[in-house]
């Protein structure tokens, strides 16, 4: 087939009055969208190759570049949109599954944006976090129903807990899907701000063992990189059942990304595809999960909390209840907007439910069953800013995981091409030419700054509500009001409408 229907997605606009032909853009584009014509002694662009990652735009010293949607239009059709048509062309040409990266980008309602936060007026003073103490400390792990004190001492020590200085952790992103420098950035930021990052299913690189106490080590269906030292190194262990970007399916790290370091860390041969099965083949039911939870607890002498991460699916409340009863100390729920390095487009965009509903349903169910305090609830799946966090905590979350937001702090521009391995920002790639573009000292500083900024904002909003400790917001749904929601939606979220 010689006929290709492919047309450019983006248009690179070069302001020739400003371009100095310095070739910075040429050197920085791993997709080779820019080139240098030696004969003409000038820089040129190839729109076909552009993924709109903005690397060239940001680095151009004369601001000569911009990128737009390619202005080519089909005859107006609200049903057969350009995207639908292009995807059919692509599949007709290749016969393959459509792949993409990051999270669901469809215009489904964003329920965070349909909730508003309360503030104090007159009857209750608001608190100024710059003058008064304001506490965000959060403990994740199983809480006993009560404590017993004998002779001024605890009769029994608490079960192991993760101690967070703010209710935000970096979500699971594996070494392989992201670069070691990206992992180092997150690990250092977690250390600096008193929180945790998560290895994902890619094992723990030897350079990161010194930060093991800030690491949640994941055990996923592929069991990559799982060995006694790995389990011992982490602060907590997370069993990954599913993730929001691809509920019900496994993972696939192509062999070209499995270089020496990834191969060593994952304990698989260099250059082989790393395939994670869709289910854990030793977990076909809830009692099997219980076995794995207790195997991991046994293996680590009950010294670390065990988390179970699932994707938010229709029956999430019942599943979460089962997980709590199976002995998990933390349940992590990833909503349908959760990001990833690579996922089938149709699964990403059409499977799962919003994290807001999943969280509300799970929190309510666990409370109805009187077991909410036995387990901590961590939610993920497109937490975009501090107000999302405040709303999540008010709905009932103990903490949130951030993935996309953390990567954006490191420089990600959401071009959704993680799966190509050509990330120009040095994040979702293993190409040594590209990974060195992310200096982990700078990355750590930026990720830590984001957490710092959010800490301040959360404190401002808490103070506004007249609350000086985050726990008083947890599950405090009276602090939320819905806007533009149906009765049914309000009911599921367990909140009143604005004005009520």
């Amino acid at each position, binding site marked *: 087939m010689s006929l290709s229907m492919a047309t450019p997605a983006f248009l690179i606009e070069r302001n020739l009055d400003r371009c100095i032909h310095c070739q910075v853009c040429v050197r920085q584009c791993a997709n080779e969208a820019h080139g240098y014509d030696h004969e003409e002694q000038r820089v040129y662009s190839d729109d076909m190759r552009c993924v709109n990652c903005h690397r060239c735009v940001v680095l151009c010293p004369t601001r000569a570049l911009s990128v737009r949607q390619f202005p080519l239009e089909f005859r107006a059709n609200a049903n057969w949109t350009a995207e639908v048509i292009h995807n059919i062309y692509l599949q007709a040409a290749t016969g393959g599954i459509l792949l993409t990266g990051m999270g669901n980008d469809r215009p489904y309602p964003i329920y965070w944006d349909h909730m508003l936060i309360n503030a104090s007026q007159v009857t209750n003073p608001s608190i100024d976090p710059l003058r008064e103490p304001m506490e965000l400390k959060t403990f994740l792990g199983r809480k006993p*129903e009560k404590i017993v004190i004998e002779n001024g001492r605890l009769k029994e020590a608490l079960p192991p807990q993760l101690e967070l200085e703010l209710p935000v952790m970096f979500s699971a992103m594996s070494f392989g899907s992201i670069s070691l420098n990206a992992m180092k950035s997150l690990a250092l930021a977690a250390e600096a701000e008193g929180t945790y990052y998560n290895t994902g299913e890619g094992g723990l690189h030897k350079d990161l063992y010194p930060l093991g106490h800030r690491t949640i080590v994941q055990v996923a269906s592929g069991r990559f990189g799982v060995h006694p030292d790995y389990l011992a190194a982490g602060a907590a262990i997370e069993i990954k059942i599913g993730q929001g970007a691809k509920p019900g399916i496994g993972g696939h790290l192509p062999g070209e990304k499995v270089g020496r370091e990834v191969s060593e860390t994952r304990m698989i041969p260099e250059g082989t595809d790393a395939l994670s099965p869709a289910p854990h083949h030793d977990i076909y039911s809830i009692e099997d999960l219980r076995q794995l939870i207790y195997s991991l607890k046994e293996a680590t002498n009950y010294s670390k909390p065990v988390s179970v991460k699932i994707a938010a699916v229709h029956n999430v409340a019942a599943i979460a209840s089962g997980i709590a009863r199976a002995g998990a100390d933390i349940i992590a729920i990833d909503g349908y907007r959760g990001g990833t390095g690579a996922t089938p487009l149709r699964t990403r965009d059409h499977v799962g439910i919003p994290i807001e509903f999943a969280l509300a349903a799970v929190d309510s169910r666990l409370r109805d069953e009187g077991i909410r305090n036995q387990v901590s609830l961590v939610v993920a799946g497109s937490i975009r800013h501090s107000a999302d966090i405040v709303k999540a905590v008010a709905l009932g979350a103990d903490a949130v995981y951030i993935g996309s937001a953390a990567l954006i702090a490191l420089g990600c521009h959401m071009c959704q091409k993680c799966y190509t391995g050509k990330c120009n920002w040095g994040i979702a790639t293993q190409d040594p030419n590209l990974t060195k573009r992310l200096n982990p000292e700078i990355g750590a500083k930026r990720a830590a700054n984001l957490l710092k900024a959010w800490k301040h904002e959360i404190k401002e909003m808490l103070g506004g509500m007249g609350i000086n400790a985050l726990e008083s*917001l947890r599950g*405090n*749904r009276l602090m939320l009001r819905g806007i533009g929601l149906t009765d049914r939606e309000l009911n599921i979220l367990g909140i009143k409408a604005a004005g009520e």
Partner: protein
Amino acid sequence: MVGNDGWARPWELQGNHRREGSKRIPSGCAIAGMINRKGRTMSGVDAIQSIALMHDRSNGLGGGFAAYGIYPEFPEHYAFHLFFDDHKAREQTESFLNQHFNIELGGPIPTRKVVGISGAPLIWRYFAKPKLEQLRVAEMKEDDFVVNMVMFINERLDGAYVFSSGKNMGAFKGVGYPEDIGEFYRLDEYRGYIWTAHGRFPTNTPGWWGGAHPFTLLDLSVVHNGEISSYGANRRFLEMFGYRCTLQTDTEVMTYIFDLLLRRQGLPLETAVKAVAAPFWSTIARMPQAQREVLTAIRTVYSSLLVNGPFSIVLGSSQGIMALNDRVKLRPLVAATKGDLLYVASEESAIREICPKPERVWSPRGGEPVIGMLEDAMPKAVPAPPVTVCHL
């Protein structure tokens, strides 16, 4: 709709449709409390006088008192005080009570006519003990059984509301200024070793008598000034332990928190206080290790019971009183002692009004409880004049 005499008064709207509980009601208030640590009793006049001085801190939409040691002739009986919307509700409730309790005595609580108090429901009182066979069937301890019964009546029996259920103690409350409420209930005729008092300034009230303070459960009573920003978090945690917060008031939540921690979980009072008004993490970090571990455990396990926002409360029990401020002291609270007497109040003047020369007066720090316990676990109450009761 029905007056205390049982006659219908259709112009005074009253009843379930105007009960509290459909909306959350924030309020500001005046509180006062006093205890004789030797267990000697005082008449209600002092309590009335003290709270009356803080007239401007309430707005006539609620006042009340709790008194301990007032029923020495029935020390082992649960003294149930109930509001009824009408006699039908009373009859229905009495048949329910008779089914589960042996009622020693029952009848209307004596009141007198007071200008400024109107729209009173039927106010009755019963001295009762649970029937043994009922306890056996329920497989419950006496106290748990009584709590369940109280919750059942308040939630399920239309037009009936138990507002006091302790032994040898009672709450007296209603809609009006507290001094008028005291007069109405003839509290000058009662003698108790502990009195707490409350004047309410709700920002929104249906004018229902049950909504006034104190709020009680068994012998625990709470008078409270403040608005709890953590209400939703506290309430949802308590609901996991079977509490039903039907009134949607902060005081109700506060009572249940102490009931859970003190009675059901058997925690010492100091520990319960640390859960409710927790020290800051920065303070905990400076403590010796053992203490730090205990406080960390309290804040970890009972994080949802931290009461956030401005409050001052007086918690009454048959063993003593405890006054407490929120941890940043956003509401007033003053304490004073003289001899065996401990006084607490929203304002110093309210104490000086009845105790002009206290030995010591201080303003407790946020989160630091003022505790006055009876020196003798079993108070030797001076016999009070017999209360007027009539047989069912």
